[in-house]
């Protein structure tokens, strides 16, 4: 008899275990199918930064350096330059001619986003930055910039008549 | 006979304006025929100390707006100073609502010259300047003729009226800046600089034009002096109320039947001036408000107007006698528009030297223009009052105060009109309130 009991007990245990399996098979999956399918992100997920553009395609960044000042891991490097009428890159008087983020060091804390007075730098949802070569982890402005809105032209060439300084 | 600015009123006490209306009243002969230069001769006789004490007794107070006792001002000028002393007439009459000095200069310029000569004796000065408002272009030509006549007839120059007294008078035209009516800005402008007020102390009496002791008074103040010397300070003081000697030229404008310049003794009842001297309000409309002494004075409501027009009574009522420019506003007046008009003037005239006045007037003008258009919230009305108070007493010179005081009073006393305007525009669906 003990044998039979043992068999029944085992069968019951298997049935119990399989019942979970079968039940879950019918429920919708909660696992991301990454990399076969794109992963889902919460809205506020802090991924690879995106440098935003305004509605005209101008870069929002005016190279104020506040993000780099706020950065606890000092991973943002900026060089500023002046917008000129023939070559207008950003909405302000100044734009970032160089904007590098070193993802070897970035801790994705979001302080840069908080510091930004023009909402230029934001966290995107990109995360696939693993690399065998650390040099490729220094992202340049071109890699960070949001795509141009359709029809926009940057640098903008302004050909307007000079306006007098009246009042 | 020349056509006067306005018909004189029988209720007037005509002292300074007694020659107004005489034929060729601006000519030396007319002046001499009506007692001219008697005061000057008497002043030479009695000497500086006596002159100053007579002026003190007369309780004459500066007619330019601030109302500082004239005799005291004269006594501050050091007579034995190594530098020359200057007599300067402030004829930069630019206060909106005020138009008395032009009449004094136009119809009785010798009275002014005689007043200057007496002041010259009082502080031992040999040079006088008349700083005439730039917009009074015609008066400059007129005064040039007068001064020329005075020189050619020996009433100015090395030997005034044969008495051996030496005095020269120069005319100087302003360039259209209200700010240059402020005495120290006037001095800067006179010296050829940008008309910006100076730091006080030192006061002009000690260090004025070209760092020399300078006696600076309004046209009307100087014009009153010959009468004081001739008839005695006591007599002049008796015309007015205690501490407020004499008469003054009140320029009544606005909603009255007979606007004009009237010479009334100090302490004259304001309502009587409006309803009897100036002939009352057209169409029998009701009085709404009065600006008692030029646009820089706080506005009085109709109910507050039952008072005597002297420096102290008006101060008690929370306003000022100012420069005598009385603006009467009847019930049809839009007080928001009035506040805007006043602020627009001060914004245009602010010299830009100090921050509160430069920025405050511009900001307030923009806000008042917006409120006048009915755009805004009740909080904006509070902000107008608050900004004006922030200007008050903190500016470099009195221009900031002049802009703030009427605005504060209008916002406080006629707040309902601001609100009504906002409401009506909101009701019309034009804007949203709140």
């Amino acid at each position, binding site marked *: 008899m003990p044998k039979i009991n043992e068999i029944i007990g085992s069968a019951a245990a298997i049935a119990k275990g399989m019942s979970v399996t079968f039940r879950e098979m019918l429920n919708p999956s909660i696992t991301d199918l990454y990399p076969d399918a794109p992963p889902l992100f919460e809205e506020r997920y802090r991924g690879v930064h995106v440098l935003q553009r305004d509605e005209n395609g101008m870069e929002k960044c005016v190279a104020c350096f506040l993000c780099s000042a706020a950065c606890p891991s000092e991973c943002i490097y900026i060089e500023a330059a002046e917008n000129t009428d023939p070559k207008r890159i950003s909405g302000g008087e100044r734009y970032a001619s160089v904007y590098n983020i070193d993802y070897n060091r970035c801790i994705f804390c979001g302080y840069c986003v908080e510091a930004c007075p023009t909402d230029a730098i934001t966290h995107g949802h990109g995360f696939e930055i693993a690399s065998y070569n650390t040099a490729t982890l220094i992202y340049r402005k071109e890699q960070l910039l949001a795509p141009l809105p359709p029809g926009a032209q940057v640098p903008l060439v302004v050909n307007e008549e000079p306006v007098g300084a009246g009042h | 006979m020349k056509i006067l600015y306005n018909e004189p009123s029988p209720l007037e006490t005509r002292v300074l304006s007694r020659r107004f209306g005489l034929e060729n009243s601006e000519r030396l002969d007319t002046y001499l025929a009506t007692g001219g230069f008697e005061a000057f001769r008497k002043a030479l006789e009695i000497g500086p100390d006596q002159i100053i004490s007579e002026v003190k007794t007369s309780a004459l107070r500066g007619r330019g707006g601030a109302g500082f006792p004239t005799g005291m001002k004269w006594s501050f000028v050091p007579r034995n100073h190594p530098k020359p002393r200057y007599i300067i007439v402030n004829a930069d009459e630019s206060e909106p609502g005020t138009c008395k000095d032009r009449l004094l200069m136009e119809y009785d310029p010798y009275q002014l010259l005689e007043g200057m000569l007496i002041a010259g004796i009082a502080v031992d000065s040999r040079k006088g300047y008349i700083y005439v408002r730039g917009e009074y272009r015609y008066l400059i030509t007129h005064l040039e003729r007068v001064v020329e006549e005075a020189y050619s007839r020996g009433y100015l120059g090395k030997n005034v009226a044969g008495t051996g007294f030496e005095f020269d008078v120069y005319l100087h035209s302003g360039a259209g800046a209200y700010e240059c009516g402020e005495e120290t800005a006037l001095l800067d402008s006179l010296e050829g600089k940008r008309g910006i007020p100076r730091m006080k102390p030192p006061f002009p009496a000690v260090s004025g034009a070209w760092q020399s002791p300078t006696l600076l008074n309004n046209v009307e103040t100087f014009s009153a002096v010959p009468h004081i010397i001739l008839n005695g300070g006591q007599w002049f003081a008796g015309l007015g109320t205690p501490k407020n000697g004499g008469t003054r030229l009140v320029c009544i404008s606005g909603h009255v039947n007979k606007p004009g310049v009237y010479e009334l003794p100090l302490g004259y009842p304001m309502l009587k001036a409006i309803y009897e001297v100036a002939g009352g309000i057209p169409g029998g409309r009701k009085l709404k408000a009065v600006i008692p002494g030029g646009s820089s004075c706080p506005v009085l409501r109709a109910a507050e107007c039952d008072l005597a027009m002297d420096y102290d009574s008006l101060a008690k009522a929370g306003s000022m006698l100012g420069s005598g420019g009385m603006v009467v506003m009847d019930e049809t007046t839009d007080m928001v528009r009035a506040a805007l008009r006043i602020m627009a003037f001060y914004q245009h005239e602010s010299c830009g030297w100090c921050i509160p006045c430069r920025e405050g007037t511009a900001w307030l003008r923009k806000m008042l223009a917006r409120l006048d258009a009915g755009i805004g919230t009740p909080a904006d009305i509070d902000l107008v009052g608050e900004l004006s108070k922030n200007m008050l007493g*903190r500016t470099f010179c009195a221009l900031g105060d002049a802009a703030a005081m009427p605005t504060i009073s209008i916002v406080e006393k006629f707040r309902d009109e601001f609100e009504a305007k906002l409401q009506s525009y909101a009701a019309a669906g034009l804007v949203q309130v709140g």
Partner: protein
Amino acid sequence: MAELVTLTIDGAQVQAEKGALLIDVCKARGIEIPAFCYYEGLALQAACRMCLVEVEKMPKLQPGCTLPVAEGMVVKTDTPVIHEARKSMLEFLLANHPLDCPVCDKGGECELQDMTFRYGLGESRFLENKHHVDEQQWSPVVFFDRPRCILCYRCVRICDEGVGVDALGVVQRGVVSAIAPSHGDHLECDECGMCIDICPVGALTSGMYRYKTRPWEMNHVGTICTHCSNGCKTTLGVRGGQVIRANNRDHSGINGEFLCVKGRFGWDFVNSTERAQSPMLRTNGRLEPVSWSRALMTVARKLNEVKQRGGRVGFIASNHTSNEENYYLQKLARQGLRSNNIDHHRTGDVVTLIDALAGRTDALATVADLYAAKASLVIASDLAQQQPLLHFQLRANWRHHRSRTYVVTPGPVRERKFAVKSLHAEPGRELDAVESLRDDLSKEPELVILFGDAIQGDAVRRLVAFGDSLGIPVKYVCLLDYSNSRGAIDMGLAPGLLPGYRPVAEAGLEPGMTIAEMLADASLDVLWVVGANPLRNARLAAENAFVVVNEMFLAETAQRADVIFPAASAYEKEGTVTNVCGEVQSLKKALKVMGAKTDLEIFGLVAAEMGIDLGPFQPGAVFEEIRREVRGYNVSLPVIATGGAAQSVPLNGRVPALTRAELIQSARDTLFTSGTLGRYSKNLTSVLEHPGKLYASGIETP
């Protein structure tokens, strides 16, 4: 001792000098009264109304910046009313201020920002349209952004009162009033940038620094300007191996807030693309880049070879190299090569002055003396052009203390505006004119005499004799041209003088050749030129001489070189320099330029390669030796180490005269030129006034 008064500030009893300004008294007590328009040393304005305080018995708030303290005054600086007033002033100021701090160059070091943080409102109640005017460019170095301007009039005052140029004024009135150049739409001035520096906000910005970086992104290195001899302190802002700006950020040193166009903008030669970055060796008639070791070895071998066969070696030294380098070079020449053929371009006759003073130690003026002296006499120099700091000091002295200045020059100079007497003197007749001032000068309580290169040799002796005969204390400044002209002669870079003005005979040597003699000596074997350009206007007689050049730029002399060592500029090295008044100050290394080495390193490495032991070639060690060995250089180390200026007093006995008139000549650099350095500074050559002209300014009478 001035009369003291007792007053009460915020409840505390305070003693202060009668008539002192309340704002200064409070500052000394550690109580801050905020202000924009108040600036120490400039005329009072009371325009910004930030400094309002409560004073008992006065009905209105009083501006602390114009209120003299008086006995029994009771002042309150910390009451709700005052807080309210400050808040409202800032609110008014910010009404039309554009709030473009993120792009404004001043952001991070802006007084308006600081004040708003400390005293201002959190948010703006100004909802109207802001008054806007487009930005204007007034000169290559000065830009003006009207909306940011708070009209504190500091720029107008520093230009008029401080520099004496009067290039700025105020136009319009009310809210549209604006600062404007006197010449309509552009500046014609000294381009000194003092207006930019003094601007509390970002209204005036520098064309060189504009939109380049932010203040906190730079390393700020306080060093000494390498152009003229005045020795102004300058703070270099360095980022990524590049100098981005220069200003005397902490207003320390002998120049306070002052810097001229060269100090403020003339630093760009450092990052010039034309800098020599590699040693060069002439091979087959052409200069080819080689390694340092190859170049050093070549020079060392040549020198050793010439030394062994008793050949002739000459050294032409620099006016810009540090004292340590100069000292080490003369040691290399004298000890290493037993040669006294060492000289530099001398621009003033300091040697005769020191000889004529015959050991007096109190007769050399410092820069500070020029601000304190009751009277001064300027002979044969266009001070505002050639010695801008000294001019600034004299002018400030006149403004603040009504000091009396006498001028004897061959043409109009700016000091004539405030001089009590100014005489015209043809070159060579200056002393006659000075003699005619004898009566005036002898009535002065004291005098500082500044003289240019026209007074040399016997004339210096006659001038000192004249000074002695006045019967009043007289101090002298022998005007020189370059940043270390004084240090060069002090360190014995002369054929007849050892460091400290000791005769070469003391070292058992014969005097060597001067520059002219070296250039004319056809049998010269080696000529080593350090940071100088003697071949610009001369030719080298010795066709076959081996020429070694330490240079930053491949100018005329470098083109003739057989070996070129790329040298570091003064901004790339440690060390000390001595200014025109003999004040020793330390250089701080601000950056490293790829490929260049300091001259000290080059000398040390060559000596090592030659197998000569001249001691360590670290600046600190050499300076220690200088302090030990060079007469008058035993200066206080702490003073120098903390960025101060310590005057060297090289006077304790007569020195041998070696003056030969034709050897001493100023280069006549103006405010906008600076020898070779100036040629390679685009900033300097870009201004309208470049190259400038001596004796052409300040013609107007006051």
